[in-house]
């Protein structure tokens, strides 16, 4: 068997594919953060909590009402998105004109409250959610066993990422969004309801997080703390990609998944820190991130 640095090529290919799957999660989550920061200048530290709510919602909807996976895939992000709009309307709007640090502190506090409340209700051992029947099992690719569900995750994440990028960069609605956040007074003079646009954008970002949560529910242990663990990594991804850059968030998300996967083969102990190492290096060379615009 041919080897690369003492690791069989087959094993390495498997790890690359897995890295891509994890990267799809990072991309989806950092995309939401990038949309919210890029358009609203809110540093959304509650993003992990919304991701957790998406997963939790999926489990609870199934346990209490028997709602299946496909319905949950739409319903859970919708419910969490509406909750996000409430948060924007009643809390974030009050500090819209204050320094960014206030939105960071507010959303961070909010995340702690949400996490604390659900820890009290559900504990931390984790809830189980079965993989939908249609995705049970997997296929032997020769170099690895690929569960069907993981293949679905990567497909779903890529479609959503591309769709979001297309909507913001290429459609009329997207141009309103970008213009509305660039110069809201001018847009209001044109008769566009900018506050509504802001609420909807925040809600959409939150929906993206919750959507990632639904995708995660069958493969990770669903606990109230699951969002906190992933959030820091996702923030690093956003910083590497360039705060607010949508294409940067997606590409960096996928790339970091792969780098992390390779680290797990060559030096597993460093796999949780390698992304931060990359972040330091990138910031030294390009302070605005790989795809960010210099201020």
């Amino acid at each position: 068997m041919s080897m690369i640095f003492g690791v069989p090529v087959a094993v390495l290919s498997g790890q690359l594919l897995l890295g891509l799957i994890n990267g799809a999660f990072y991309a989806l989550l950092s995309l939401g953060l990038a949309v919210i920061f890029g358009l609203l200048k809110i540093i959304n530290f509650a993003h992990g909590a919304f991701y957790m709510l998406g997963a939790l919602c999926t489990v609870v909807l199934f346990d209490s009402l028997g709602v299946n996976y496909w319905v949950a895939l739409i319903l859970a992000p919708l419910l969490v998105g509406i909750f996000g709009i409430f948060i924007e309307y009643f809390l974030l709007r009050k500090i819209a004109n204050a320094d960014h640090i206030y939105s960071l502190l507010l959303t961070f506090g909010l995340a702690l409250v949400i996490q604390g409340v659900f820890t009290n209700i559900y504990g931390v051992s984790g809830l189980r959610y079965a993989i939908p029947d249609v995705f049970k099992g997997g296929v032997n690719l020769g170099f690895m066993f690929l569960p069907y569900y993981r293949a679905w995750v990567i497909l779903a994440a890529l479609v959503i990422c591309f769709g979001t990028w297309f909507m913001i960069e290429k459609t009329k609605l997207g141009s309103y969004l970008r213009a509305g956040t660039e110069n809201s007074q001018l847009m209001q003079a044109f008769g566009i309801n900018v506050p509504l646009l802001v609420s909807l954008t925040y809600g959409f970002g939150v929906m993206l997080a919750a959507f990632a949560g639904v995708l995660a529910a069958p493969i990770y242990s669903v606990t109230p703390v699951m969002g906190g663990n992933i959030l820091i990594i996702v923030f690093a991804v956003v910083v590497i990609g360039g705060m607010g850059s949508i294409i940067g968030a997606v590409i960096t998300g996928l790339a970091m998944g792969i780098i992390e996967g390779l680290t797990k083969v060559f030096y597993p102990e460093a796999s949780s820190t390698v992304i931060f190492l990359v972040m330091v290096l990138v910031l030294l060379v390009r302070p605005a991130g790989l795809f960010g615009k210099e201020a």
Partner: protein
Amino acid sequence: MKLIKKILTTAVTSAMLAGSAQAAISDNEVRIGYLADMSGTYRDLAGPNGLTALEMAVEDFGGQVNGAAIKIVSADDRNSPDVASSTVRQWVEADGVDMVAGLVASSVSIAATRILEQSDKLGIVSGSAASSITNEHCTPNHIHYVYDTYPLANGTAQAVVQEGGDSWFILTADYAFGHALEGDVEKVVTDNGGTVMQKVRHPFPTGDFSSFILQAQSSGAKVVALANAGSDTTNAITTAGEFGLTQSGQTLAALLLFLTDVHALGVDAAQGIQLTTGWYWDMDEDARAWSDRFIEKTGVRPTMVHAGIYSSTMHYLNAVKESATDDTQTVRQQMMDTPINDMFAKGGVIREDGRMVHDMYLAQVKTPAESTNEWDLYNIVRTIPAEEAYRPLSESQCKLVNN
């Protein structure tokens, strides 16, 4: 005259005795502090329900000992040795706490017992795994009650090797507890004629185990052992199921698994896994009876840690009652002199290093067909006798043991 003298002497003597009896229990109150992870990773296996177990013990004891009231205080250690140290210091120096119960994360226990040693108060460690707590970190001021990494390795690893699982892949959480467990397991595997083919250390905590499971699959080892705990273990088991690890002929061995973990995984995902436990709620009549009371109060079945907290608190209060004092060394000696026979342990004994040795059990998670309800999770496969389960005193590095 003689009679008056006799009456006076008797009166004075009994007054003095009464006075000394009162003084024997400091402040005329026995104060117990419950310190545990109330909100983090170890919340479900100890946490608030451990406090309920403690309260049940105090209630069953009658709420007072030799006329002195029993008072409970509690705090969240947030799995931080710093928080634990300052809380315990406050408790023993300012609040007059006599005994600290709970104590889950090993780092927290080691920090807390150091403070207890300085102020000569008692600690009963119920949740921690590290066997070093009664080895190099032993003190004359604490007792390690429920289990430790030594029988975990001894029980599960030995059973698996003897069943023919002679080549091992060990996946280890990269911190003190994982390293200790990995070392203990490797010794047991090689002593029993097996080989450890590969060891991989993963960061603590890890969310996604797919890469590690893939490595385990390609290693070709017969046994994939998990030297980790809590959500790391449950995540690894779920991922192993998803990637068809056991279907492809490998055996999964979880070295530390609590009832709450198995409950969270469900029998579908966890069926067939072997594990070592210090106690199981359905293992005999006494255990069942106590667990029925516990589930009525908490809504969940107790883990071995919950049961251990109840049992050790009872044992402590009995010792205070018997010795008529809350003086640490007198009570500890009394606890060592009295064997433990209750719903938790039969014939349990506290050794001079502070280790409570009792029978341990090798259990196997039931299949969905065998399990009759959500908490009907284990078959007890074998009893591991106390003397076989724990590190023998002859190998001890504890300063209290004369080797």
